[in-house]
């Protein structure tokens, strides 16, 4: 989705494992990797400390999302064996100091903004995990519809009817035959998010559910798809806006 694919600048050699961890950190609003979005500006590894410089599309990037990404970066990089300490820096962000101070000390969002934040970010995080769930599911649904499955047939599918292996994605049809569908990445991302939300991922569970894991009857599936499509478009519009802003910023147009 991203138009900007700029590699972070590495001041020093960077331990193996860092890239994969960073790839897993998502912009919660967009549901895309911050690495692919180009938000990671530079990396420096000295001793056992990894310093990560992040730069968001604007100085005014919402502090709650900025905090979430900074926190996720720190947590995920602390899982890399050779990294004992992580220092996250926000380049040119209007609340950089407070977010850096809180995140790097492992303190909460509420600690960072005691007089302003009413609560921590768990609810907001969940809300966006659910939106991402719908976006990913929409990609899968689109592929199923393109493969000419009816809503009736889709409503009857179970998790076990989807098979992903070696970049090939297949679906077991009504008559027992397997059809290839063009959705390997989306399907995989969908199932991972489903697990992350704690929903039933067993082989017999319905493949297409709402965000709470409840199955959707065939006669409501078209409307569900149309709604999921709007959720996807909203996220892509955000992504597009962020990329445009970041792009202008990197081209130096805005300063």
């Amino acid at each position, binding site marked *: 989705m991203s138009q900007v694919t700029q590699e972070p600048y590495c001041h020093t050699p960077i331990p193996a494992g860092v890239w994969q961890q960073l790839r897993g950190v998502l912009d919660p609003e967009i549901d895309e990797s911050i690495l692919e979005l180009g938000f990671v500006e530079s990396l420096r590894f000295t001793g056992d400390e990894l310093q990560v410089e992040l730069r968001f599309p604007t100085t005014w990037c919402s502090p709650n999302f900025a905090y979430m990404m900074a926190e996720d970066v720190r947590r995920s990089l602390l899982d890399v064996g050779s990294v004992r300490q992580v220092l996250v820096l926000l380049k040119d962000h209007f609340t950089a100091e407070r977010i850096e101070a809180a995140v790097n000390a492992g303190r909460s969002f509420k600690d960072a903004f005691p*007089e*302003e934040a009413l609560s921590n970010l768990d609810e907001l995080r969940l809300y966006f995990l659910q939106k991402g769930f719908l976006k990913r599911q929409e990609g899968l649904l689109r592929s199923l519809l393109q493969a000419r499955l009816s809503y009736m047939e889709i409503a009857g599918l179970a998790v076990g009817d989807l098979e992903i292996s070696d970049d090939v994605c297949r679906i077991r049809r009504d008559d027992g035959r397997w059809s290839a569908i063009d959705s390997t990445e989306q399907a995989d991302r969908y199932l991972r998010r489903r697990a992350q939300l704690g929903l039933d991922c067993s082989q017999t569970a319905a493949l297409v559910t709402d965000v709470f894991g409840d199955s959707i009857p065939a006669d409501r599936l078209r409307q569900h798809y149309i*709604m999921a499509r709007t959720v996807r*478009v909203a996220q892509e519009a955000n992504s597009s806006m962020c990329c445009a802003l970041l792009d202008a910023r990197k081209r130096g147009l*805005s300063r």
Partner: protein
Amino acid sequence: MYRTADGEEIFVIDGHMHFWDARPENWRNKYGEGWIRCFYDYHTSLSPEEYLWSFEKYCKYDEETLVNDLFFEGYVDVGIFNSTYLTEFYKEGFNTHRQNNVLKQKYPERFILCGTFDPRQEAQGLEELRQMARDYPVQGIKLYTAEWRDGSRGWSLADEWAYKHLEVCQELGIKNIHIHKGPTIYPLDKDAFDVHDVDHAATDFPELNFIVEHVGLPRLDDFCWIAQQESNVYAGLAVAIAFIHSRPRYFAEILANLLYWLGPEKLLFGSDYALWSPKWLVEKFINFELPVDVQEEYGVELSMETKRKVLGENAARLYGIDITARQEQLRQDSIGRQLAEFS
């Protein structure tokens, strides 16, 4: 007015424009600078290169520039001043109804003036709202729920005191409530984009119209659910339409969603001038076509009739403007006379 190749005249109401003062001497603090830089980021990110302004010009443009960019170059017939106050960031305000009224007085038929209220002022706010309606020709209200005031970082349209202010608007006959739901700022943990408060107010004030500026971006989906249910919720296309140049595919999908959920009667064009200039937005919109796959998938079309509605007819209906009569009036004012000379 835009005249198509086959001579069809399209009446244009710019539903969202500003005449701001962001000169450094008007900055109250670092937020004044931050705010206009943020706007400038949007300007540079989405404008075609030939429409880029210098930062200095962007901070303060004069009357002549505005009149030229809207009426002489930009096809606009009537502009709606979306007054924006930000008095905690700008000493004299960013573009208050007092500032905007100067141009309204010079060209009364060319502008619609929006005022505002702030429910956090409680009873005093009600009095100020009445006073404003007595002193100024206010026809609409512009609200900004994320605006700062005395340590508060925002409010909700569903608040008790917001309701009391909306009751006064209704009583005064100020029917159109423009509410900003868009670009990033505070409050921190709730995030300022949340559009759900509009749902409550729209249900409880069926006689008022709620124009959600920037279609709730980045919450287009939440906005669509609300606007589809509430017959008095409209989509202000400012910001969304600026995608038309650099990200036309996304613009097509956003528009297809709006047409699908809201229909062609509820979308209002807005340039957000001087964020972007109406000239290129109007030209590109008139020539814009939805890709065939998008049309087929959503079952919507962007006909010239729909474009006419979006560009002017819908806003005219909300503000009780008789387009034929207004065109006649506009031909008579100083701008109209100059336009006639050029053509």
